[in-house]
């Protein structure tokens, strides 16, 4: 038995309506799924934290001003590398740190050569530990400088003096000590989350729950907070977001 012309037309019309309805309902979600799938290599990583870092210019120093005179400042830096050469210990670069007082007089200047170790780029499982969300550059090992000075300073300038040819850029983060009033150390420490307290106490022999009041006080007065550069982003400096994969991410906060 064969369908009449009318019957065939009705079947085709029905199928066309079903196809149109399915396209209407599923086209946008399907397109989104495909777009998201293209990014799956990035979103599949368990992100623990993000931090802003500032790319050193190489042509001019980057200035950081502080809310109060300081006797020490912490600078965390790393090299961003594109097209790394074959076997190498790491990326070498030199930064110049200059300290100024409130009147603009230079108090001290230091040149420090650092080695961004290649191996720090990966965790034991082979996943990326720190990375940019976009672009080809990979982040190599992180360095930390604590710069101290007898006379208080209110401004720091950081400049990239030299770097290996394959270093695409050097990023820095600058921290000042978080001001804490005397007597508030314990409450400041206890307000941190359990993970944060554990990260801060990682250098101690005992877990955070077993710290003595003196140890808690010492940890609390050594909490740092980030400082941004002077000027306007895009004009005076360039800010980048550095992602940290779990479980190492929390160390970025200290």
């Amino acid at each position, binding site marked *: 038995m064969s369908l009449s012309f*009318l019957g065939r037309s*009705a079947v085709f*019309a029905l199928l066309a*309506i079903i196809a149109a309805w399915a396209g209407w309902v599923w086209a*946008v*979600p399907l397109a989104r799924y495909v777009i*998201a799938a293209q*990014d799956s290599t*990035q*979103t599949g990583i*368990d*992100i*623990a*934290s*993000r931090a*802003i870092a500032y790319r050193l210019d190489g042509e001019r120093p980057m200035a950081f001003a502080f809310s109060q005179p300081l006797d020490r400042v912490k600078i965390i830096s790393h090299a961003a590398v594109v097209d790394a050469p074959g076997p190498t210990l790491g990326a070498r670069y030199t930064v110049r740190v200059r300290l100024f007082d409130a009147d603009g007089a230079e108090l001290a200047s230091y040149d420090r050569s650092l080695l961004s170790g290649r191996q720090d780029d990966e965790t034991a499982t082979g996943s990326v530990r720190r990375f940019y*969300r976009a672009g080809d550059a990979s982040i190599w090992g992180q360095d930390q400088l604590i710069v101290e000075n007898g006379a208080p300073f209110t401004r720091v300038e950081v400049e990239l003096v030299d770097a290996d040819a394959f270093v695409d850029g050097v990023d820095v983060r600058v921290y000042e000590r978080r001001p804490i009033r005397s007597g508030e150390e314990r409450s*400041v420490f206890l*307000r*941190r*989350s359990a993970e*944060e307290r554990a990260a801060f106490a990682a250098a101690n022999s005992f877990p955070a729950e077993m710290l003595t009041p003196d140890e808690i006080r010492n940890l609390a007065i050594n909490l740092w*907070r*980030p*400082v*941004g550069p002077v000027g*306007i*982003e895009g004009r005076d400096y360039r*800010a980048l*977001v550095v992602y940290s994969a779990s479980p190492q991410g929390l160390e970025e*906060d200290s």
Partner: protein
Amino acid sequence: MTARSFWLAGVVLLASCSAGGQAPDARAFFGARQPEAAAAQALGLAVDQQPGELVLHDPELCGARGNYILRQTGGVPVAATAPHGVHDRHTAELARMAYREGTFAAAAWNSVPRRASGHCDGLDLARAAVHPFTDFALGFSDRFPDGLIVQFHGFDGDRRESARAADAAMIVSDGTRTPGPGLFALADCLSRMAAPDRVLVYPAETGELGARENAQAAALRDAGGARFAHLEMSLDLRETLLADKDLRARLTGCLEEAVA
């Protein structure tokens, strides 16, 4: 049934399907390509026709009401909204300013109190699935399926469980535990804006203020159209944004970039 009557029935069926078979509702009004004042009045909204835009108001109740602005043509496909416009201090002003300065397609804010007082009932609009505010979000999504609905909220740092959240300038989420790359891109832009203060992404960086029960986020997910971004801002950041036009320009720039 003759062939002619069969085709006639088919045409009638298709026409009724395309018309929806229903009278226009709030979602359909907010989703119209060129919303008309008469349709708004039919929904019981007070209309203030401005050049190129419709300014609409819900009936006032206990001194509070909802406000909606629809750009009648053009505009960046972003809706700046503030469901707790008064309770979350300055968020209504920020939504209105973002709409104007970012030339966004729409804005909505509501002054209804979250908690009951005296003879007035409270209402947490961000949890009200059946409300013109949710219809506004769904209509915007129908009108701009690739758009972004951003909700401005405010948080009190002293009420946060962790110091990380208490110290943050902003907590960003899309109402799910699995934010997509688009939300991270927005958060990165906002991080550069707020630096050195921190912008956290829920749930990767904080377990607080994730908008998991947000009614508009849930409705938009079900509808499958425009994206949703929930911005919880500290009071410091809200006050700074209110006073600093350049910083607001960076905020609206981030939202524009999110739909570019």
